[in-house]
């Protein structure tokens, strides 16, 4: 057998095995919409990047209401999408019910842990990323007051707020941190008008750096901050481009990377199940510096933040995670 034949044989075997695993991955965009410039858009971008890089195809659908989660998830599974990525903690109880019915399908859920044998749970250490942008906020603030606008009032968002406050207090122990939540229902992820109102109220209380962790509501926060001439911090996606000069940085949560990785490993074969943690060490979270904000982040700021980042990764600085005990030592 010549070397060429061996190669041909190998590629044929490869093609066969690829054929066996030839299921399209699926992505269910959550409430708030595909183009929320934040959480969902990040996931969508990850999927698009995967299409660009691999030329593969995937199924996508957008959730239209809270009560249709189950039908949407089941339809994806019935159509043979594998693996299926669902976004957000609100899917947890539905997935717990749906996943056992499709034992041959792999699911991945972002932001929540679902304990099923065919589910990969992807969680981010948002508190550490928020800690870093909290430091940046405190260093950029001139008034000694910074603020936070959250989306829906859930432990996950308090985790952002708590990390942010810890970071700010690490730089300036006397700093005042104002915290507001937009609402208590999923509608709070998509209420830019209320986001803008909260921001203006915070600015009137002296805040000059506003961190929005509120999905589509953040668009209003960033807009209001730009209108009032103060600085803001974006979330999930890199939002620095939205108001250059006003958006100080963005606490990026690489949902896109997570989706990309799930699609990739799913296409190659089996998706590992269990809990996957995305943190500072594997660039799951971080702060964004690009052309739009490079003049806002000074060298001194950058050095300090990078130092803290290294210390968090090594364990020297421990950032408290709100969700572990539902309390925040600094708020």
């Amino acid at each position, binding site marked *: 057998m010549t070397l060429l034949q061996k190669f041909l044989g190998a590629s044929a075997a490869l093609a066969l095995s690829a054929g066996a695993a030839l299921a399209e991955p699926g992505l269910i965009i959550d409430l708030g919409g595909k183009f929320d410039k934040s959480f969902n858009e990040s996931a969508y971008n990850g999927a698009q990047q995967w299409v660009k890089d691999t030329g593969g195809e995937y199924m996508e*659908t*957008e959730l*239209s*209401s*809270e*009560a*249709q989660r*189950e*039908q949407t998830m*089941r*339809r994806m599974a*019935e*159509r043979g999408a594998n693996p299926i990525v669902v976004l957000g*903690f*609100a899917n*947890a*109880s539905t997935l717990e*019910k749906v996943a056992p*019915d499709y034992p041959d399908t792999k699911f991945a859920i972002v932001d*929540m842990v679902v304990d099923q044998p065919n589910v990969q749970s992807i969680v981010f250490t948002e508190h550490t990323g928020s800690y870093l942008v909290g430091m940046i906020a405190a260093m950029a603030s001139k008034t000694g007051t910074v603020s936070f606008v959250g989306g829906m009032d*859930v*432990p*996950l968002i308090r985790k952002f707020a708590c990390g942010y406050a810890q970071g700010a207090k690490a730089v300036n122990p006397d700093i005042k941190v104002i915290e507001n939540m937009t609402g*208590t*229902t*999923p509608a709070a992820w998509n209420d830019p008008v209320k986001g803008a109102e909260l921001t203006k109220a915070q600015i009137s209380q002296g805040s000059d750096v506003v961190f929005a962790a509120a999905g589509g509501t953040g668009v209003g926060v960033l807009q209001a901050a730009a209108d009032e001439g103060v600085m803001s911090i974006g979330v999930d996606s890199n939002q620095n481009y939205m108001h250059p000069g006003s958006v100080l940085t963005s606490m990026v949560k690489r949902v896109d990377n997570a989706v990309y990785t799930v699609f990739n490993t799913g296409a190659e074969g089996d998706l590992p199940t269990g809990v996957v943690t995305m943190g500072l060490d594997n660039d799951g979270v971080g702060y964004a510096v690009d052309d739009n904000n490079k003049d806002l982040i000074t060298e001194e700021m950058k050095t300090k933040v990078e130092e803290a980042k290294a210390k968090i990764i090594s364990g020297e600085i421990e950032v408290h995670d709100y969700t572990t005990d539902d309390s925040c030592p600094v708020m």
Partner: protein
Amino acid sequence: MNLPKWADVVLIPLINLLLALFVSGLVVLLIGEDPVNAMKIMVNGAVGSTYGWGYTLFYATNFIFTGLAVAVAFHARLFNIGGEGQAQLGSLGVALVCLALPWPHWTLALPAAMVGGALFGAAWAAIPAYLQARRGSHIVITTIMFNFIASALLVYLLVGALKAPGMAPESARFPEGTFLPNARDVFAMVGIPFARSPLNISFLVGLIGCFLVWLLLWRSRLGYEIRAYGHSEPAAKYAGIAPFRIIMITMLISGGLSGLMAINAVMGEQQRLLQDNVLGAGFVGIAVALMGRSHPVGVLLAAILFGALYQGGAELEFETSVPREMVLVIQALVILFTGALDNMVRGPVTTAFLRYGRRRPRAEPAE
């Protein structure tokens, strides 16, 4: 001259539907998709498989209850557009019943949940009914405002008292004894494979409901009074029918029927209380009642049609790049043509029948 019955019940709704589909086709064409293909996907998705049928009939069950609710009120000339809110309160009633006890079997849980849902729905309708009957506050205004209050109340409870541990605003899961028999399990018993869908025993309850409403309206004294009151209030009064009593009873029945929707959506499918569990069925119920001419059989057929539209629309969104909003436009067009623009078709059709009807007697003496 009145239209023949078959034209009123079958012909006009059919023309309305075809017109709506035609305009929808134009809209689909306008956004650069193939309308024939879109129609194929919708029909196939709705009735082309047991999976499609399961979902179509599941949605239809919701619409049967809300459609009957609106239809009963129509007969007393009461325009109850608060089905949405009454169904939400019904869902609360069903959830409270399901969570109250560790139910051993669904045969016990279902009747109790039905009572809970109907009572809560009826209670929610009772307030606008009283305001209409005693104070003359228009029922259209009060019932629609009560929808918002119901939704706010549900949100308040779901982020507070009823919230399950965790982050999402939803109640705890109902105990297993409340799970209703699924179409898949029922068909499996007789050896027919049926895809997994939320279609459950509530569909049969809906069918029984249709029959009972027919019995009530056309075979009972109360039904006669309701219809008499609806035709003419002064005449009804003269005949000794008390308007207050009729308004209250009709609205209680109407609200109760709306509330019963929750045994399908909440108990049958979601198995926990969610924030927006009615999914607009309260409003679709108005279109269903209009299209079904407020007759239980018409309501049943219209409900199945709208169920198919809902399910087919969901498939269309899934299969093509037709966005979600466009599916909503198609559904809205059907509602517009069958409900609001009904007279547009009715006029010409009546004229056509009049002309056709006159020619025959003229032809006879000539012979």
